[in-house]
């Protein structure tokens, strides 16, 4: 599978996200539907919000090969009493506020999956999970036409069949809350990976015959 975005957020403390460039496809641009507020910043080689009033959305420069891909990021709740509603996107349009958004909402300790469609947000699912402070949780948003799924540490937690947003878009981050160096949601190891693209390289086409014949999603057979 081809990784088209990879960012460990390794940089000098205080570097604004849109002034930072990660390892692969990770030059970040503020989304035009947002853009008012204080930039999110690198903090101890992680990303955190720095504006308690405004949501900021950024998309990565990496372009997916198709419309189906995974977006994965590691979330660490740093000890503190602040609130945070940050999360990340798949199929994020670079022009309008559309895509699939996965949020960890601290006040109710819930993962929430949304569809954003031209600025209209609709919640598609919810999963309750209290997070232990200073512990890493790997969240993966699997974006396929058939389903949008959240996996936390490899375990499926939310599944939705909504596919109203069909364009590939980009992978991105949305940050809002009251995070500081010693509080809030801190994000690390952001990556986005095409589903079922490069694993077919060099394999005889005939190997896929059963996948098509069985009527099962191709990606599900080769991952």
């Amino acid at each position, binding site marked *: 599978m081809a990784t088209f975005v990879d960012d460990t957020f390794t940089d000098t403390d205080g570097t604004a996200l849109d002034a930072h460039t990660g390892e692969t496809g990770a030059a970040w641009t503020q989304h035009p539907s947002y853009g008012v507020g204080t930039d999110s910043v690198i903090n101890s080689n992680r990303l955190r919000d720095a504006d308690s009033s405004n949501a900021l959305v950024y998309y990565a420069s990496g372009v997916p090969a198709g419309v189906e891909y995974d977006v994965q990021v590691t979330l660490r709740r740093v000890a503190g009493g602040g609130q945070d509603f940050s999360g990340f996107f798949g199929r994020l349009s670079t022009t309008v506020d559309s895509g699939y958004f996965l949020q960890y909402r601290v006040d109710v300790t819930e993962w929430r999956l949304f569809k954003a469609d031209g600025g*209209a947000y609709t919640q598609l699912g919810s999963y309750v999970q209290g997070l232990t402070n200073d512990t890493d949780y790997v969240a993966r948003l699997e974006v396929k036409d058939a389903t949008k799924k959240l996996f936390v540490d490899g375990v499926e937690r939310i599944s*939705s069949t909504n596919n109203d947003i069909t364009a590939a878009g980009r992978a991105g981050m949305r940050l809002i809350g009251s995070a500081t160096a010693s509080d809030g949601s801190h994000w690390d190891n952001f990556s986005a990976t095409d589903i079922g693209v490069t694993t077919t390289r060099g394999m005889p086409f005939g190997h896929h015959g059963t996948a098509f014949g069985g009527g099962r999603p191709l990606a599900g057979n080769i991952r």
Partner: protein
Amino acid sequence: MSKRWYVCPVEGDGKSAETCFRPRLSAGLNWSAVLTDRALVLVSASEPQHATLRSNTALCALPALQLSDSLDSLPLAERTALQAKLATFGIAVQARGNFGTFIRMVGKVMDSNFNEIRTDAKEP
């Protein structure tokens, strides 16, 4: 019987993730919404959410049946009450026959593309 369906009003103005359109459910529940941009939504949920959801009078809890079961197995009074409750949501569907067909009919009131086979709700 793990997964169950609930007809639920939708709240929110949709203008942000914080004020999104969502089922009118209290926080702290696991659920998956089958459709979301109408005044009502069909929500699927699994144990142990059912006790809380069934006590919410703003919802209409659909019977705890398998898709292959028949609504005709339920007492007439229960089916009549179900129809009456659905009618309060503006849903006029006869509570009889195959339960899977019934679910699809209810779902299609809100989404013409609804298919109960594709719904999902995860265990905690």
